[in-house]
């Protein structure tokens, strides 16, 4: 009985299944190897994209830290001459210039952008959609175009380069960025809150000021700080309109200087001391930008926690 069974040819279906399993397991091995290799390649791209950041920061620290001192931050620059090639003055004029230009630009841009943000978030019309599209496209336009704009309207009209023209360009640059952040933040406020305010008999203006904006504040502040971080580093529009001044001057209707502009000009200089100065300013600028962008996260997170 058993012998008869043993003599039977192997079950073709079982045989087939065995072959399939063998090939499959071979193939699975290869596919998994391929997958591992590709995962490695993906990981490599992440490393590659972090290398420039590391390199930039390392160079900044290596070449910039030695330059920084209290005098460097507050004094006016000294032009190197053939006799005094190693003259390193300071960047007091550029610090004041950046502070005045970006500060005033923010003072103008923030309220305007919040109004536009309220408009975009609270109305639904073709005009609003069109405005939203235009605002977003403005965010991506090359900043140098705003320099050309400020040159044509301010510099040519007033027949003088001035910090004021730079303020106009930078304001124009900041408004779309803050508007976008404001609209997103305002849309994120639960509608029930506004309705509760209205049901209590408050006017829309009162509800916006007293309810909507405070709740949207973390997002607003993030937007403002991020736009400031971007504005502080902008060189191209300022280059066209600010003129240049080697003296500390708080009057925005005079020619001024600005931190990024000084880097641009020092980098083209043949003097080693000027190039060194460029790295010092770059370090100051990057620290300022990092403080602004990290600060925006910190403030937003903290305010969100308090609101809860």
């Amino acid at each position, binding site marked *: 009985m058993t012998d008869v069974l043993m003599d039977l040819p192997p079950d073709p279906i079982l045989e087939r299944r065995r072959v399939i399993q063998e090939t499959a397991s071979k193939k699975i091995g290869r596919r998994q190897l391929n997958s591992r290799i590709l995962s490695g390649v993906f990981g490599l791209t992440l490393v590659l994209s972090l290398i420039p950041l590391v390199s*930039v920061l390392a160079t900044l620290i290596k070449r910039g830290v030695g330059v920084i001192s209290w005098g460097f931050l507050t004094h006016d620059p000294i032009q190197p001459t053939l006799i005094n090639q190693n003259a390193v003055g300071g960047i007091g004029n550029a610090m004041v210039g950046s502070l005045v230009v970006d500060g005033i630009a923010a003072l103008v841009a923030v309220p305007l952008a919040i109004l536009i943000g309220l408009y975009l978030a609270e109305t639904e019309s073709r005009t609003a959609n069109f405005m939203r599209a235009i605002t977003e*496209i403005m965010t991506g336009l090359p900043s140098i175009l705003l320099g050309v704009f400020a*040159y044509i309207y301010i510099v040519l009209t007033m027949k003088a380069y001035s910090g004021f023209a730079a303020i106009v360009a930078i304001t124009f640059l900041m408004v779309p960025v803050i508007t976008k952040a404001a609209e997103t933040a305002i849309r994120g406020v639960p509608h029930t809150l506004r309705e509760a305010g209205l049901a209590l008999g408050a006017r829309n203006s009162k509800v916006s000021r007293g309810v909507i904006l405070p709740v949207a504040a973390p997002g607003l502040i993030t937007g403002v700080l991020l736009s400031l971080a971007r504005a502080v580093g902008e060189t191209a529009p300022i280059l066209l309109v600010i003129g240049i001044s080697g003296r500390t001057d708080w009057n925005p209707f005079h020619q001024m200087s600005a931190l990024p502009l000084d880097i641009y000009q020092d980098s083209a200089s043949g003097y080693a001391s000027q190039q060194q100065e460029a790295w010092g300013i770059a370090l100051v600028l990057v620290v300022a930008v990092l403080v602004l962008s990290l600060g925006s996260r910190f403030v937003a997170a903290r305010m969100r926690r308090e609101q809860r």
Partner: protein
Amino acid sequence: MTEESSSTKTRLLSRDLTGGIHPPVKSDLGYWLSIRAGALIFGAAIVLFVWSILHQSLSAWTSHGIHILTGTVWSPSTSNYGALPLILATLITTAVALLVAVPIGLGTSLTIIFFLPQRLKTPITSLVELLAAVPSVVYGLWGLFVLVPWMNTTIEPKLASITGGGFPFNGATNGFGLLLASIVLSVMILPTIVAISRDVIAAVPHEQIEGALSLGATKSQTLLKVVLPEARTGIFGAITLGAGRALGETIAVAMVIGSNPQIPKSLFSTGATLSSTIATEFGEASGAQLAALGALALILMVITASVNAGARTLTRRALRGHA
């Protein structure tokens, strides 16, 4: 579903009450007007902005005509204003920058979403975002003092030996030029590409990924054959947005491209882009040259505005598709 539609209804209703298109009640008139005034001011400023650049370039178009777009010589000293060399350099640097940044950016997004452990995701994402925070002029400085020597002694000779000194890696090497500008640009647009592509890739429905995995696809196969195709509209949006950045980037390019407005013969040659020419020549320009620079600004504005509008349409469509 019913809950969602009822909330849309309340929202519409309260929109009607709160300064929507309907005329406001009297006490709200001030508010109704002020938010519109803000939008109106900015709208007017944009109209002025576009008009100023049109107006500025008007005399250049009337005196040179289409020659501005097609002329092959840009030489202010001989009053030759042909922007073709500048347009070419702008397009070439952007294309090369995309060739470098797109694969690296997509790989980075996929790694962040699918391979990093949960607790590393946020810090690594912030690091990549930091790349966007570094000002353009600092990238220029870095390119000038760190990359130029490296390109000059290592990268350019190597590339030249690969092609045997053939196109596009031919000609004299000195570190500066289109290739360096492209590399600096690729670093600058990388965070844009990563940020947008990360959003659209993360929006790919989980069912699709799990479906592919359950059918026996490996992780990489799933990423390449399911996730990337599914997210392609948004990825094109990310690429287009990156292209917009690269086309308009000014200062960093002006610092490393060599400011030589000639038709580039290879990636090693120096050149000048639309925006870098505006930046470097504006200070000393007057009269006809200023008008010609205005024409460059107009060309730049038309190109970048259309590219950005395209990017906006693509990313919105992609994110809406999965919402």
